[in-house]
C-alpha cells in the first residue's frame, strides 16, 4: 500500500483533524483514486480505531472524534467519488425507536458500518414502526439496526418487530438491537436476531447477518 494512503490511515487513527486534509491532498497528488483513499485509508483507519476501542485504549469520545476527522477529510473527496465504483455490501436501516431520542451510539454504528462498505439509511430518532416498515418496502433493505437508551422504550423494539412481521417482511430482514438498556436476553425476548454490546461490534454483527441471509 502506498505510503500516502498509510498516512491517511494514521491520521484517522491518531485523530489528527488538522492533518487529515493535507495527507489526503498528497494522495490525490500521487494519483490515488478517491475510492481507494476512502476504502484503504479512512475505512481501515476507522477499523483500527474500533479495535483500539475494543481493547480499552480508546473511548467513546475518541470514536466520535475519529468520525469528525473522517468528516473533515471527506470535504475534499465528496465530489470526486464515483458512485458506480463504490460497491456496497448491503443496505442497513438504522433507527432510534419510537419514544427515544438518543442517537450518539446509533451515529457511531452508522459511521462504522458506512466505513465498512454498507449503505446506511438513517431514519433518525423517535422512529415509528410504520416508518421502518415503509422504508424496508421502499428501499429493499434487508438489515435493520434498532437503538434505544431508555429502558421504558424497549417495548418499541417489540412493536417494530411485530409491525415488520405483520407486513409479511420478517423473513426478508435481519434485525439487530443495541443501546444502554439492551442485552442478549432482551434481543431474544423482543424477537430480534442479534444484539451488539458496543457500536464497534456492529460491523461483525451485520456482516454475519448478511452472510446468514
Amino acid at each position, binding site marked *: 500500500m502506498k505510503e500516502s494512503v498509510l498516512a491517511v490511515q494514521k491520521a484517522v487513527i491518531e485523530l489528527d483533524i488538522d492533518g487529515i486534509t493535507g495527507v489526503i491532498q498528497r494522495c490525490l497528488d500521487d494519483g490515488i483514486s478517491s475510492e481507494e483513499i476512502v476504502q484503504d485509508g479512512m475505512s481501515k483507519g476507522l477499523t483500527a480505531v474500533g479495535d483500539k476501542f475494543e481493547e480499552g485504549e*480508546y473511548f*467513546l*469520545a475518541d470514536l466520535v472524534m475519529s468520525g*469528525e476527522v473522517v468528516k473533515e477529510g471527506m470535504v475534499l473527496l465528496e465530489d470526486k467519488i464515483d458512485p458506480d465504483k463504490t460497491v456496497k455490501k448491503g443496505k442497513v436501516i438504522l433507527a432510534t425507536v419510537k419514544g427515544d*431520542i438518543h442517537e*450518539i451510539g446509533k451515529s457511531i454504528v452508522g459511521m462504522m458500518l458506512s466505513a465498512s462498505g454498507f449503505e446506511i439509511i438513517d431514519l433518525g430518532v423517535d422512529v415509528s414502526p410504520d416508518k421502518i416498515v415503509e422504508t424496508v418496502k421502499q428501499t429493499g433493505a434487508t438489515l435493520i439496526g434498532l437503538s434505544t437508551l431508555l429502558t*421504558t422504550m424497549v417495548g418499541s423494539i417489540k412493536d417494530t418487530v411485530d409491525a415488520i412481521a405483520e407486513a409479511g417482511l420478517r423473513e426478508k430482514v435481519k434485525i439487530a438491537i443495541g443501546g444502554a438498556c439492551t442485552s442478549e436476553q432482551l434481543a431474544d425476548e423482543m424477537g430480534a436476531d442479534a444484539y451488539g454490546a458496543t457500536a464497534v461490534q456492529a460491523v461483525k454483527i451485520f456482516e454475519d447477518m448478511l452472510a446468514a441471509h
Partner: protein
Amino acid sequence: MNKHERVKMALEHKEPDKVPTISPMDVQKYVYDVLETPVPDNITKYFKNPFISKIVDITAPILNKIGGLEKDFRNFFVNKMAADVKMGFDASWNIYANIFRLKDSTCMTDIFGRIYKIVEDRWGNMETPSYIDGMFKTPEDFKRFKKKEWEAHPEMMYKFNVYIKERFGNDIYLFGSHLFGLFEQAWQPFGFPTFARLIMKERGFMEEVIEYNKQWYLKCVDASADAGLPGIIYSDDMAFKSGPMLNPKMMDDLFGDALREITGRAHKKGVKIVIHSCGNNKLLLPYFISWGFDGHHALEPTAGVDIGEFRKEAGHKLSFLGHLDIAHVLSYGTREDVFENVKDSIKKAGEGGGLILGPTNSHSDIRVQNLRWMMEAIDEFGRYPLSL
C-alpha cells in the same frame, strides 16, 4: 438511631444500626402513588391539543416570563420529598430543577444552552425532558448566549434549599443537588461531536468554559451547604455501558483540579459530597477518590457493575449509593427478585458501612410495592452486625 445518624455513619464507613436507603431522583407515578393522590396535570399535558399547541408555539417566550413551568417543577420536587418521607427513605435525592424553558409545544431549552424533547411516561405523565442537542456550535455561540438566568440560578437554588430544609430537614437526610456537573455542562450545550471537535481544536476555549462552570458550581455548593443541607449529590454522567465517555486521563486533565476545588469547598463547609454517574465507572473509581468525592451513586447493574468488584477496587475510600436495579427488579420484579437483589448487594458491599441502598436511577415503572419489599429486605438482611 435516627435517619441522619444512620446515613452519616454509613457515609463515614461506620456500621449504623442497618443499611440506610436513598430515594429515586424523579418519578411522578411513584410520588403520587405514595401520596395517594392523582398525578396533577402538568402544563404540558395541554400541548397535545392542536389549537393550544399552536398558541404555545407563538407564546412560549411569554409563558417563560410568567414562570409557566416553574410552579410545576417546584411543586413536583416538594411533593417528591413528602413522598420520600412517607415512604420511609432515610435520604432524599432532591434537585432544584427550575432550569427548563419552553421552546415550543414539543421542545424545551434550558438556561445553559441545551435543547430537549418534551416526553411522557406510558401513563401520560410528564417525564424529565429528554436531551436532544446543544444550542452552541461555535465558541461565539457560547459567548453570545445570555447568561443572566444561569448566573441567578445558585441564589434561587439557595432559597429553595432553605425552604425544604425547614419543611423536611428533621424528617429525612437531604442531599442537595443540581442537575448537571462540569463534564455535562461542557459537552451537552455543544452536542458531543462539536464538543469532541472543540477539545481537539479549541482546547483553550474549552478550558475557559470549564472554569466558568466551576465558578458557578462552587456557588451551587454554597447554595446547599449554607442552607444547612448535610449532603450534596454532584450529578455528572461520565460513563456509558461500555465505560467512560472520555479517556479517564483526559477527564482528569480537563476537570480534575476543578472537581477537587468543588469537593474541597463542600468539605470546608462540613458537607459530604457524592458523585452520581450512570454507566460503568470502574475505570474512574481511582479518580473519584483523587477528586475528593466521599461516595459514588448509581452503580447500574445493567451497565455490568458488580458492586463486589467495585468494593475491592475502591475499598472504603468511597461510599456506594443506589445500585438496586430499576430495569427489572424494582419495576417488574417479584418479591423474591427484590430480596435476592438486596441480599446480594449487602453481602458484597455492606460490611464496614459505606453502603446506602436505593434505586440506581429513576424509572417511570418503579413500583411502590417493590420499594416496600426493598425496605423489608433491608430489615431482614441489612441489620448490623451483618450475618450473611
